[in-house]
Structure formats: structure tokens, C-alpha cells
């Protein structure tokens, strides 16, 4: 009936009831309005399964998600503004804490950008060490993804295995850089220190162990029916959706497009390494799992090639006005400047002393200009837009964080699915909120 004074009529918004007083059961003759009730659920920032301080406001009809809005900003640290008050080298310590699961990538993107602004070329050994560290970090980051993703879906053994395997990666990183996380090892001009003795043996052992762990993952998860059913056909995002939203990384490769910056717009000599870019054409969470595990295998191949190629050489550029002067080494009284370095600056060259002093206190100057440098982080394209005003401090650094961009796809992945699939979808995006909020 189209009479607007009738008790109920169908409209484009659904059934509309005109209530003019009277009993409810006479008004709603027929349909039960409770059936159409929508629940707004807040998966708050403190939640075991939202992968960090991510807040999801979900509208549910029963178990089906009709709307999903991610709210971020709970970890905003002001990293970018902080770097404007530090020298170019000190800014590394801030940027490394953005994406804290893969810190070496933040450092590498930033340092590559600074070196382009400086117009300097790195020595070969520094580039190889950077590549090796980044690939070890990629494997460690994917282990964290597997562990936390498994934890959120309920596969707790995936968590214990993932963290155990990650510990081995951190052992290697601790041997080389001195820290387990947030290394601040990759600096503008090269790397902070040379590889210590025993690195090659340790890394080769690590390669063997990691391959064994990956075999274990295959046995544990790949055929496991619950894991498969939780991930297959869940959270689909096709190539058009990824490109429209600017999503890069394993999500784009799982949708079918082999876009990997290491191959397409190479940096740090990646074009000279022999590795594949794994893709899958399903576009769902299962495809992302497959792609990430395959990427771990490829990273191991790259680390092997780096080890075969390492030759003795400098790890910092030769320019005394830019190269970080201190050579840390373990002495009888603890970690400090190496004795040769102290001898050189105190008893040898006056210029070396001046350079050391100026570089550590004032920092080097970067000619003015702006640059955008992107690297392929485990989560996607990590870009660093750097503006220099010619001084010793960055004028503006903006991190294009893949987690920030990829989380925009949460709504597209979640809407229409079940609420349990929201967890699996967010886990497959693999956001790190430190990078997302910076």
C-alpha cells in the first residue's frame, strides 16, 4: 500500500512503521523487529586478537559483519616530529622504533634516502651487510606474523614455534648488531660496525636450522584442516581492490600481481641476486600464508648468496665529513671506542679529532632537497620522504608505512564475512601498530 497513513509500508530503507499510539503488538502485526536488530561491537584497543592497539568498531547482524571501521592512533608517538630535533644520525634511533618488528627496514629506507640526498655511493661490503640484515629481519618478521596470527586464530603451537624460531634470528642479529630489537645499526653512510668473527659460521648454522623449522611449519599447518578452513576463502581482496587502496606487499602478491620493489625498482644491489617473487592467485588469507612462507624461503636464498659474496672491505663510506667516526669494540673496561681509534684521534691526527667531535655533536650537513625512497618491507612498500633544508637536522621525514595503508583494506576484507573471519583477515594484513601510527 502506498498510503502514507497506513500502519506500515515498504520503503527503500526497509519496512517503516507509523506509530500513532496504541499497543506494540497491534502495531507490529507480522514481522518481529528484533530480527533486524544490529549490534555495534567495539573490539577495543586492548584486545588479545587485534594485533596491537587497533580498535575495530564492528556492526553485526548475528555473526555477519555489516560494517567494520578501524580506529587507529593509539600508538602515535610523534616519531616524525622528534626527528626534526635530532641530527641525521640520531634520527635513525627514532625511526627504527616505528615498525618495531622489522626495524632494520625503517633504518634502511631512511639511510638510503639520506645517501641519495648526500649523493654518495656505499662500499660494496656495507651494501651486502645491509641486504643480509634486512633479509634476516624479514624472516624474523614473518615468524612473528606466523606466531601472532596463529595465536589469534587459536593455533597456540604456531605461536610457540614461531617465537622459538624467531629467537634464533634474534641471536644472529644480536651477534652482528648487539641488540635483539631496534638496532639502529644501519646508519647514513654504511653500517655501524663490521661483522664480528664467527658471523659466517653462525649465519650458516642459522640457515640450516631455519630450513628445518620451515619444514616443521609445513608439517604442522599446511595440511591441518582447521587452519585451512579458517584461512581459505576468508578475507578476499583482488588486484583491483589492492591497487585502488594502494595496498602493497604480500596482500598484493597473494592477489596475483608480482610487484616486489626488490625486483621492480631495485635498490642496494638486489638486481644482482637470484631469487623469486612468490605469488598466488587466490587472494584470500590462505594465499597470503602461502606467499609469506615462500618469501621466507627466498630470503634464506638471498642470505646464502650474500655470504658467498662477502669480501673484506670498508663498512662505512670514506668521506671523513660524513662517516660515523667511532669504532666500537669490546675492551677490558667494557664496550667503547676501540683503542686504535682513540689513539688516532688523541695522538695521531688533529683533524680526526675535530671530525669526530663535530660529527658526534653537530652531525653532518645534507644538501637541501627532497627525496622519496621506498624499500620492500615484510608488510609492503615502506617509503621514506625526506626533506632537507641544508642543515644538520632533518627538516621533515615522513614514513609511508605499509601497515597504515594496508589497514584501510580492513573494511573491504571484513564486511560480509563472519566476525571470526575479521580476526583472520586482520592477522593476514599483518599490521604493526607502531608503524601504522608512528
Amino acid at each position, binding site marked *: 500500500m502506498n498510503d502514507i497513513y497506513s500502519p506500515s509500508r515498504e520503503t527503500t530503507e526497509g519496512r517503516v512503521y507509523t506509530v500513532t499510539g496504541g499497543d506494540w503488538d497491534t502495531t507490529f502485526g507480522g514481522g518481529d523487529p528484533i530480527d533486524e536488530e544490529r549490534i555495534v561491537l567495539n573490539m577495543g584497543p586492548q584486545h588479545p586478537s587485534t594485533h596491537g592497539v587497533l580498535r575495530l568498531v564492528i556492526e553485526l547482524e548475528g555473526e555477519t559483519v555489516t560494517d567494520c571501521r578501524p580506529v587507529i*592512533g593509539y600508538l602515535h608517538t610523534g616519531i616524525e616530529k622528534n626527528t626534526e630535533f635530532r641530527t641525521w644520525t640520531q634520527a635513525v634511533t627514532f625511526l627504527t622504533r616505528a615498525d618495531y618488528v622489522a626495524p632494520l627496514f625503517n633504518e634502511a629506507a631512511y639511510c638510503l634516502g639520506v645517501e641519495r640526498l648526500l649523493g654518495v655511493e656505499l662500499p660494496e661490503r656495507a651494501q651486502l651487510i645491509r641486504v643480509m640484515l634486512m633479509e634476516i629481519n624479514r624472516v624474523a618478521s614473518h615468524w612473528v606474523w606466523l606466531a601472532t596470527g596463529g595465536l589469534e586464530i587459536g593455533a597456540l603451537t604456531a605461536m610457540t614455534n614461531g617465537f622459538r624460531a624467531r629467537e634464533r634470528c634474534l641471536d644472529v642479529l644480536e651477534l652482528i648488531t648487539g641488540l635483539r630489537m631496534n638496532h639502529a645499526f644501519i646508519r647514513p653512510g654504511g653500517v655501524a660496525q663490521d661483522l664480528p668473527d664467527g658471523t659466517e659460521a653462525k649465519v650458516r648454522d642459522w640457515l640450516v636450522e631455519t630450513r628445518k623449522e620451515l619444514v616443521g611449519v609445513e608439517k604442522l599447518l599446511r595440511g591441518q584442516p582447521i587452519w585451512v578452513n579458517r584461512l581459505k576463502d576468508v578475507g578476499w581482496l583482488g588486484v583491483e581492490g589492492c591497487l585502488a587502496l594502494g595496498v602493497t606487499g604480500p596482500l598484493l602478491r597473494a592477489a596475483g600481481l608480482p610487484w616486489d620493489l626488490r625486483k*621492480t625498482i631495485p635498490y642496494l644491489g638486489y638486481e644482482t641476486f637470484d631469487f623469486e617473487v612468490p605469488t598466488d592467485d587466490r587472494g584470500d588469507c590462505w594465499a597470503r600464508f602461502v606467499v609469506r612462507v615462500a618469501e621466507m624461503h627466498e630470503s634464506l636464498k638471498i642470505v646464502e648468496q650474500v655470504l658467498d659474496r662477502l669480501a673484506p672491505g670498508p663498512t662505512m663510506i670514506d668521506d671523513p665529513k660524513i662517516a660515523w667516526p667511532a669504532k666500537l669494540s669490546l675492551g677490558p673496561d667494557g664496550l667503547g671506542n676501540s683503542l686504535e681509534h682513540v689513539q688516532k684521534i688523541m695522538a695521531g691526527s688533529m683533524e680526526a679529532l675535530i671530525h669526530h667531535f663535530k660529527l658526534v*655533536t653537530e652531525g653532518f650537513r645534507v644538501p637541501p632537497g627532497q627525496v622519496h625512497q621506498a624499500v620492500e618491507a615484510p608488510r609492503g612498500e615502506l617509503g621514506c620522504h625526506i626533506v632537507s633544508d641544508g642543515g*644538520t637536522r632533518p627538516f621533515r621525514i615522513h614514513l609511508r608505512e605499509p601497515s597504515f595503508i594496508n589497514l584501510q583494506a580492513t573494511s573491504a576484507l571484513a564486511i560480509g564475512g563472519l566476525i571470526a573471519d575479521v580476526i583472520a583477515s586482520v592477522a593476514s594484513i599483518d599490521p604493526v601498530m607502531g608503524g601504522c601510527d608512528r
Partner: protein
Amino acid sequence: MTGPAGETPASATEQPAADIERVTPVAGSTVDSPFGVEGRGMFGVSDSGDTTGFGGLIREPWSAPAATRPFGGYFDEIVDALAAAYPEFDAAVTKIVVDRDELTLYVTKEHIRSVARTMRDDPALRFELLANLSGVDYIGSVNRFHVVYNLTSMTYRRQVRLETSASLDDPHVPSVTGVYPGADWQERETYDMFGVIFDGHPALTRILMPDDWDGYPQRKDYPLGGIPVQYKGATIPPPDERRAYR
């Protein structure tokens, strides 16, 4: 006080939208560069009483020089293709800079949305991916808030940068979410941090700071906001209030 290059401040009538070198120095100040950096002195000392000699340091104001043809590499193809595909090219693109192997096109803010659409859709350009959208605050410049769009063409494996600007009095820039939906959150972040209002954005709200926050934190005149740190016998001021090399 102007630097040796003799930059003249912009008159009120002609304000090119995307230029960053038009500076209006505050009367009596030594700021004469778009970065808001004092051109004279280091440590901020330049008057009598400074015996270090650092006060006499003069820094030339710098702005990216406009590039001349040929630009090199694939940059010429991009500019030619855009000029062919976009009829108002001369009005839209005010400056072209080639620096550090990167092409930057300074676009007026009225044209930025249509230029972005052309960059995305034209078969010779095909810049499908908006890699980065960030804001920069050139506090010494009239058109203070620059919005930088880094575009990547996956088809041709090229990268280009579009840059537009807005002033404090009129901080409106058309939104490109209709062209690149991935710009949604990035524009919200630029609004949150700099106060640039993107017209046509579906839901322009704060994203990183709490919703009721006052001020735009990453502007250059917003303080870093730290507190002094107390040690035994000394108090260290927060990083933005310490004496600094420039």
C-alpha cells in the same frame, strides 16, 4: 634582512600557488628562506657579544632550481605525455624540478585532482599507485603547507612527484580520494598533523591524535611538547628548547 641572493618578498596581488620560494620575512627578522631557517648566524647568536665568530655565518637561501629541457631519463616522456593529455598544462604546472634523479611537478591546488586523474588514467602515464601522500610545513613561505604526492607507475616502473601548496589563510586543497581511494587515511593524517583541509574527502577527521585535540602537531610553530628532565643537580630542557646547531 635578505640574504645575498636578494630574494624579494611576494606582493599581495601575485601569489603563485605552488611556489615555495616566495617568502615574506617578518620585519626585522633574519628569516629569509622557505624553511624558516635564519640566514645569519649559528646558535641563534648574531649580535654583539658573540665572540665565537659563528654569528657571522651567512647561509644562502635555497630553493630548488627549475629544470630545463632535456630533463633526462624518462622525465621528458612523462612531461610530454601530461602536456598532451592535460589541456591546461601551462596553468596547472607552475614549476618542474629535476633533483636527485627525481621529477617533481609543482601543480596548483585547483588542478591537482584533475591532474592526478590524468596521471592515473592516461595510457602513456598510468601512475596507478599513490605511493605516499605527505604534508610539509615550509614555515618561511607564504604557501606554507605543501602536500606531496609520490606516484608510482607499475606499468612503466616509473616514479614521479606532484606537489601542491596552500597557505595558512586558505588551507583548502581538493581531495584526491576520488582518484586514489588509498589517499583516504593519508589525507586524514595530513589534516590531523598540519591542518590542511581536503575538500571532498568523505570523512575528514583526526586519525592519530585524540578527536578533541587542539592544534596541529607537526606544524613548525607547534612545540615538540616535551617536559624538562631532571637529573641529580641538573635539569635538561626538552629537545626543542635546547641550544642547537643550525
